[in-house]
């Protein structure tokens, strides 16, 4: 029977299958960070268990880490205690940890691919919903809770129910200035913030195939914002070229064997998807969210919607609540919304290509004097590469702040936060109420819209800058 890519990867990892029970799935790589793991390690200790495969486990510090003074102890005692707990647990259980200051440290979803630990056809989990990022390599990668973290540590497996299959096909050529972030925001707006519940999404079509690995990671990263259990893209030459030569990629004869296997990781002709969504790349334009979930987005050329125009009562109420929180009036052109802060970074858009795109727009220009711009590389590796390319100088000369690596302003767990009422244009993944700090208001955008917005102080597409 023809199978989808996700079904192939899933089936290849079934350890045990029994009628009326979830399948037991083998996990090839377990990524760990400080926030969702301490209670799992406590559980192991309480039960007298060990980590079954420390060598299939990799830990980093990312959510709590300050992006300034990174070589000093963390000032916040609660954050510091959490990071120290991870250090103790990693040492006790023999797990590799990339701590603050280490050359491999960074956001968990940036370092996996960077080290070559993320490879096609693998199952990858992490106590973090943006684990879907790794699906860009044709891996089945998904976020789990702390109880499941403990389960994977103890057994290297996870009980799972077979997901439904969704195809999101994007054919055609993306217009100039339209990026992967705009594609995924448009997808989420179309299917809704939980519209892909129960499904794994496979992104396919000529527009997807044309994307770089960084761009594919941006798309897969936000699969969870449509409610999907995972999102993936079939591996191809772009994938192999990205991986070859990375520290943990196969070498020599192993490389050839791996590539031969990876080439078979494609959805078979005639495989059936439970749900299909189609987008025309040529019709897409820079996208921005206006509300408080990632599904509440529109093209930047549009206006703030009127809740009265929503037919569904729940959607209408959600729009009313969102506009009240966001401090927006229906009918306001999105391009007239002024922002206080621009955040470029996160596991969605904190990779080298994202920084290059933004630097190209900022080069030789100045950030609007009323606007603060934070540029936060997703990892130490990205930071060093950007500095080697002189991008840090471009940002600093434009008046932006160049920071150390971490999750930063994506979520309110470290010192980088919005103040109550402040408004941001952010390349991160969530515009939930208070996500970037208590009372903060978030508009999700692409790196190029973020850079253009930093120059004008209001939501701006790169094309709007021409002649400005």
């Amino acid at each position, binding site marked *: 029977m023809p199978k989808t890519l996700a079904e192939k990867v899933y089936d290849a990892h079934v*350890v*045990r299958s029994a009628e009326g029970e*979830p399948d*037991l799935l*083998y996990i*090839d*790589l377990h990524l760990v960070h400080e*926030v*969702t793991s*301490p*209670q799992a390690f*406590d559980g192991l200790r309480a*039960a007298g268990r060990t980590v079954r495969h420390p*060598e*299939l*486990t990799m830990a980093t510090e990312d*959510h709590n880490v300050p992006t300034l003074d990174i070589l000093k102890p963390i000032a*916040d005692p609660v*954050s510091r*205690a*959490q990071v120290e*707990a991870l250090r103790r647990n990693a040492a006790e259980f023999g797990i590799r940890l990339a701590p603050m200051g280490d050359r491999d440290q960074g956001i968990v979803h940036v370092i996996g691919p960077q*080290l070559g*630990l993320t*490879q096609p056809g*693998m199952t990858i989990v992490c*106590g973090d*919903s943006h684990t879907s990022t790794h699906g860009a390599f044709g891996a089945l990668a998904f976020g*789990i*809770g702390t*109880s*499941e973290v*403990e*389960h994977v540590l*103890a*057994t290297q*497996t996870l*009980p799972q*129910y077979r997901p439904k299959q969704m195809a999101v096909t994007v054919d055609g050529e993306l217009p100039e200035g339209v990026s992967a972030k705009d594609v995924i925001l448009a997808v989420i707006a179309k299917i809704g*913030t*939980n519209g892909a519940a*129960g499904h794994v999404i496979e992104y396919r079509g000529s527009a997807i195939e044309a994307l770089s690995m960084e761009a594919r990671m941006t798309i897969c990263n936000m699969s*969870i*914002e449509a*409610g999907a*259990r995972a999102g993936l893209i079939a591996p191809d030459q772009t994938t192999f070229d990205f991986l070859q030569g990375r520290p*943990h*990629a196969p070498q020599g004869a*192993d490389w050839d*064997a*791996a590539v031969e296997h990876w080439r078979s990781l494609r959805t078979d002709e005639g495989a059936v998807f439970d749900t299909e969504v189609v987008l025309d790349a040529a019709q897409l334009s820079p996208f921005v969210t206006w509300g408080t979930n990632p599904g509440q987005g529109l093209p930047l050329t549009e206006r703030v919607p009127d809740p009265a125009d929503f037919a569904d009562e*729940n959607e209408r*109420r959600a729009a009313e609540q969102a506009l009240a929180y966001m401090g927006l009036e229906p009918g306001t052109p999105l391009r007239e919304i002024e922002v206080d802060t621009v955040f470029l970074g996160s596991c969605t858009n904190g990779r080298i290509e994202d920084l290059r795109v933004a630097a190209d727009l900022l080069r030789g220009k100045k950030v609007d004097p009323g606007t603060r711009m934070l540029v936060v590389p997703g990892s130490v590796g990205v930071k060093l590469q950007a500095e080697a390319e002189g991008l840090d100088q471009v940002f600093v000369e434009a008046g932006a702040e160049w920071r150390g690596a971490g999750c930063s302003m994506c979520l*309110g*767990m470290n010192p980088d936060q919005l103040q109550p009422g402040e408004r941001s244009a952010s390349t991160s993944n*969530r515009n*939930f*109420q*208070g996500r970037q700090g*208590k009372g903060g208001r978030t508009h999700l955008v692409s790196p190029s819209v973020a850079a253009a917005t930093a120059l004008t102080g209001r939501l701006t597409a790169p094309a709007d800058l021409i002649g400005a």
Partner: protein
Amino acid sequence: MDAFTTHTGTAAPLRRSAVDTDQIIPAEYLKRITRTGFEDGLFVAWRTNEPDFVLNRPEYADASVLVAGPDFGTGSSREHAVWALLDGGFRVVISSRFADIFKNNSTKSGLLTVTLPQEQVEALWAAIEADPATPVTVDLQSKTVTYGATTVPFEVEDYIRWRLLEGLDDVGLTERHLADIEAYEARRPSWLPRALPVLGG
């Protein structure tokens, strides 16, 4: 994990859709390394900023069943959201649709998530708004929700139901299949990556 068989309590109507786990418990509360004591963070922004928020109203202060709008628990995988609801006195959440990770996490800690059609949720909202003291019984044995003269059935996977009824943890169950795990490991390709030893540099 505490077993769940049946629960009777009053219910609070949360008329909001797509309640994300950042609202259930904001990130700043996730810095703690304990598994309990998260009740102070439960819906803290809404409890602080909205005086008429449903859980601020005395008639719903003791509710142990939360009846929410569609798409409850979206966003972050934080299991702390489940812990905070349990710590805040809730044993059951009812919604027409849950986010997958939240629903999965709830089964690991003994919080029951019950999926009902939206019209049943609306009817339950009407009943508990008309009389906040209405007892609501959620029976996992018979897979029913009962309030007043109304009884509605709900679906739950037999395996998950069994685990909840028995209060069983997954790790112990999986360890019974160690031989299957070892057999699988013996056939994994040798070129699959390992994080140790550290390579490159």
